[in-house]
């Protein structure tokens, strides 16, 4: 059974035409759920009116809540079908594609997307700025989730209820891009099918995509990116640990080797202590400003740093017999 969600906000002029068109194509067992956010133009009343002739229609009127994504998840939550689908109710989405999406899910796909950005699809007559913006967002949103769609921000898609149920609780339905949210939550091995969508111009009313919605999209991207980073860290945690340890060992081990005489040779150790003390007394240097770089049989090599903020660091060779500091001849 197909459950088709139609989120509406001020679509009273578009809804009757859309329902009429849908009735003609929906030959399978189905329900249509209009989720209206208490539209000022009383879309919900129009929908209730339509119910008289269309018995598969259900209406959910949400009072005190707004948002496309949450409207969709609430619609999915009360849906009874095994194929969950959503489309815009402003006639920008071709009702005939409902059949293709439905068949894709019935044919075994976990998710099916009507894509504007694949071969045969188009974004239609958008203003220039929005096209580029949408393209850039699409690129990031394509790469980020484990399931890669050519149009992750499409508002026209279907998902099988058995794939959707396990992830329903994990979704953050803010803003417009519920598909992106679903793609980010699905397991990487999910089967995706795409069909081309030619985006038509709006018939009546106006778009609800405003600054707030775009800002919510940015936040959504940041949130998904963070989650993905952690997922990535988790799945590669052993490598992360190994690299961290290897990196540390590579940095530290050569230094231990360079001063190993300090631990293995008692006379050298005594000489080093003596040298450090003498140099500190004669130069006024502090022990804590001297870093032993290497210990040899007859001398040590140290870095001395000036005792001031941003002090320069100089390398010295200190022979045990004379204890006159000489600039290092070469850096090891």
């Amino acid at each position, binding site marked *: 059974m197909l459950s088709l969600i139609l989120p509406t906000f001020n679509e009273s002029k578009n809804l009757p035409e859309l329902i009429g068109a849908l009735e003609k194509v929906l030959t399978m067992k189905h329900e249509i759920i209009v989720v209206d956010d208490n539209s000022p133009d009383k879309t919900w009343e129009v929908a209730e009116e339509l119910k008289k002739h269309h018995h598969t229609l259900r209406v959910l009127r949400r009072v005190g809540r707004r948002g496309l994504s949450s409207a969709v998840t609430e619609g999915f939550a009360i849906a009874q079908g095994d194929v969950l689908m959503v489309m815009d109710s402003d006639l920008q989405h071709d009702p005939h594609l409902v059949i293709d999406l439905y068949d894709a899910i019935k044919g075994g796909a976990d998710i099916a997307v009507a894509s504007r950005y694949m071969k045969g699809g188009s974004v239609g007559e958008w203003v220039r700025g929005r096209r580029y913006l949408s393209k850039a967002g699409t690129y990031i949103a394509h790469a980020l989730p484990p399931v890669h769609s050519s149009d992750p921000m499409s508002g026209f898609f279907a998902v099988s209820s058995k794939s959707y149920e396990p992830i329903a609780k994990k979704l953050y339905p803010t803003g417009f891009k519920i598909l992106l949210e679903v793609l980010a939550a699905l397991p990487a091995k999910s089967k995706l099918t795409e069909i081309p969508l030619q985006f038509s111009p709006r018939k009546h009313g106006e778009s609800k995509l405003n600054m707030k919605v775009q800002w919510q999209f940015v936040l959504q991207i940041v949130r998904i990116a963070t989650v993905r980073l952690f997922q990535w860290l988790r799945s590669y*945690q052993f490598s992360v640990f190994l690299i*961290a340890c290897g990196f540390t060992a590579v940095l530290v081990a050569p230094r*231990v080797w360079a*001063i190993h005489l300090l631990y293995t040779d008692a006379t050298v150790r005594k000489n080093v202590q003596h040298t450090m003390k003498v140099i500190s*007394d004669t130069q006024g240097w502090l*022990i804590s400003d001297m870093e032993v770089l290497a210990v040899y049989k007859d001398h040590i090599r140290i870095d001395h740093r000036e005792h001031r903020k941003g*002090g320069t660091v100089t390398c010295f060779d200190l022979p045990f017999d004379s204890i006159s500091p000489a600039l290092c001849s070469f850096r090891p």
Partner: protein
Amino acid sequence: MTRCKKILMALLLELFAVVLAFVQFGNGVQTDEAKYLLNIPYPHPPLARFILHLNQNWIHQELFWRIIFATLLVQAVWILLRLVQDLKQSARVAVAASWLLSTGVLFQAGTVMMAPLTALEALFFIYLLLRDDETVDMWLIATVWLVSLFTAYQAVLFAPIVCALILRSRVPLLQKIAAFAIPLLLLFLYTLSNPLALASITIHATKDVSDTIFIRLAAFLRVWFLGGSVVVSLVGLYGIIRARAWPLIGSFLLVSAYVLLARFDYYAILFMPLSVAGVILLLRKRQLATFPFVVLLCLCSVAFALRMPPVFSPSPARRTMQMIDNAHIHGPLFISGSFGHNWQYESSQEIVRFNAALLSTAGAVICTSPCTAMDARSEWAHFRFSDPAVYVLKNPSDTN
């Protein structure tokens, strides 16, 4: 909590953090802080201090890190709140207050020290231990364990908690041992590479070896109470004992033993994650009269704050160095007497220990302990109003 409330609370917490940071800012950099801000290679491993020193040439370095550190410590309350999100509102208030109003956090948020970082890392491990979800990402825990050890040595005190977490995972024993031991081995290797760290730790830990057990106990009580403002310290300990949370009890004993050995007020914060964990464990089992608890906690914190009020005047090091800069003195500064790294942090000239043989090269002499011998040297004059005493050459042009 709704989104709006959360954002508001985060903003208020941030304001609180900034205030705490400014309280520490008043007195200038302390000697240990200077060590970290300048990446001086002892006593702790390099990870945190390396990051801190990256912006050392920026004049706002100190304030910047104070605010970052205070923010981390204050906003950490969110982690604790996650652990009690299913409990009643009053219980959540009690937990948030335990963390935010204890002197451990009040006095140490905004200090650029390693102990608060270690406390935060411990808090992370404790969060994993106490949350309901028992899945363990063992290698991630091992990586954080490595990071915490390379932040500061005292992270080993929380080894029992890390152990407990690693033991939970379902991998072969050998892998568990590797996850626990390899970071420790690397730390040991690092210690060998830095003899100065080794020496300074020995000095640090044996500073008060000659003290009697009673002095030690008194000092331990002081540090422990300073952490949780007495109230949270006691309730927290009761909580972890009552819940028989062995890893937490183990860590508590280790931290206590460490403080008995080397007592510094700044270790107080190390008790905090354990104490608050105890409060949480207690609240999960029974009610706590939140209102009296919070009031008592506030009273204790206020009492501590009155006894140890924050200092808002610049430290002697900052004062003296500003004076020297204003007087356009150039050349190395000789300091007679002891001086910490905070002098180095404040100074634009090189500082060397007082050395009579090299005196002619000095730009000025600073006496942090009385050096009457300088008065006898006729060519050196006592700089006006200086405390500690500063001596400058009477007429620099004569000495060329």
